[in-house]
């Protein structure tokens, strides 16, 4: 291999491999499967290597890698149905976990009703509720929660206008609230009196 290519490859690894852990974490949340997550990450690195000459600003390498991974994930999972159904925006907008807990009073003897409601969930149950979100909502929420990305970074990584990022983060959290409530009902964590 010519010396110049060896140097470029070394530079590529130096810029990209420090983001491996974050990329794997994101892939794992998106796929919900360790094997599929590793495949996705490996594919991301190969794709990134191909387009490495087009990366003008090395400081953008993290956003660039996440962008490649997101596009690959969307291509792979296009058309796959997730467990959660998404109703019309108005119905979702009206849903309020805070109000529902207050109205249904699922833990009648609690003095810290909302806190105690949340305290009942195990870590895996929260992760399962999040994983069930459609990818359009799961991707921005995961990047926000796990990577602390700003709306501007999310817009860049996910190729979306800022307004769409904002509405997906809002709706994604609403769907998650609804999932947590439904999950609590199914698991018998709450008793509902009116429904």
């Amino acid at each position: 291999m010519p010396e110049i290519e060896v140097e470029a490859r070394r530079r590529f690894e130096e810029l990209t491999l420090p983001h491996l852990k974050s990329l794997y974490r994101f892939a794992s949340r998106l796929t919900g499967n360790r094997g599929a997550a590793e495949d996705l990450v490996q594919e991301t690195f190969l794709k990134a290597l191909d387009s490495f000459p087009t990366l003008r600003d090395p400081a953008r390498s993290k956003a660039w890698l996440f962008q490649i991974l997101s596009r690959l994930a969307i291509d792979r999972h296009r058309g796959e149905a997730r467990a959660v159904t998404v109703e019309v925006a108005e119905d979702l907008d009206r849903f309020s976990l805070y109000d529902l807990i207050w109205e249904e009073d699922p833990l009648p003897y609690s003095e810290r009703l909302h806190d105690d409601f949340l305290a009942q969930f195990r870590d895996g149950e929260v992760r399962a509720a999040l994983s069930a979100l459609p990818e359009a909502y799961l991707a921005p929420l995961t990047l926000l929660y796990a990577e602390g990305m700003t709306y501007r970074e999310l817009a860049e990584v996910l190729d979306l206008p800022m307004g769409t990022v904002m509405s997906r983060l809002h709706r994604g959290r609403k769907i998650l609230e609804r999932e947590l409530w439904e999950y609590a009902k199914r698991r018998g964590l709450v008793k509902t009196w009116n429904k």
Partner: protein
Amino acid sequence: MEQIERLTCSDAVRQFFAYLDGALAGGSLEALEEHLEACLNCCQKLDFSRKLDAFVKDRLGEEPLPEGIEERIRRRIEDDGKREG
């Protein structure tokens, strides 16, 4: 002086997440903060949204890397180079 638009409770609630994410600015931020100063119910709802966010973040946990993944990636990068070279 610019007039701040008064928000209803449902308008305010729709902006909670953007507020918590630090994505509100200017007139929208001022209008929400003005509403929160006068509405205890919205303050409580906002507090719950903040707790819920922290609760979910906290429970996401770490995702350990599969053993040997970095080595496998390095190998694939190298193989890719050999194929092209």
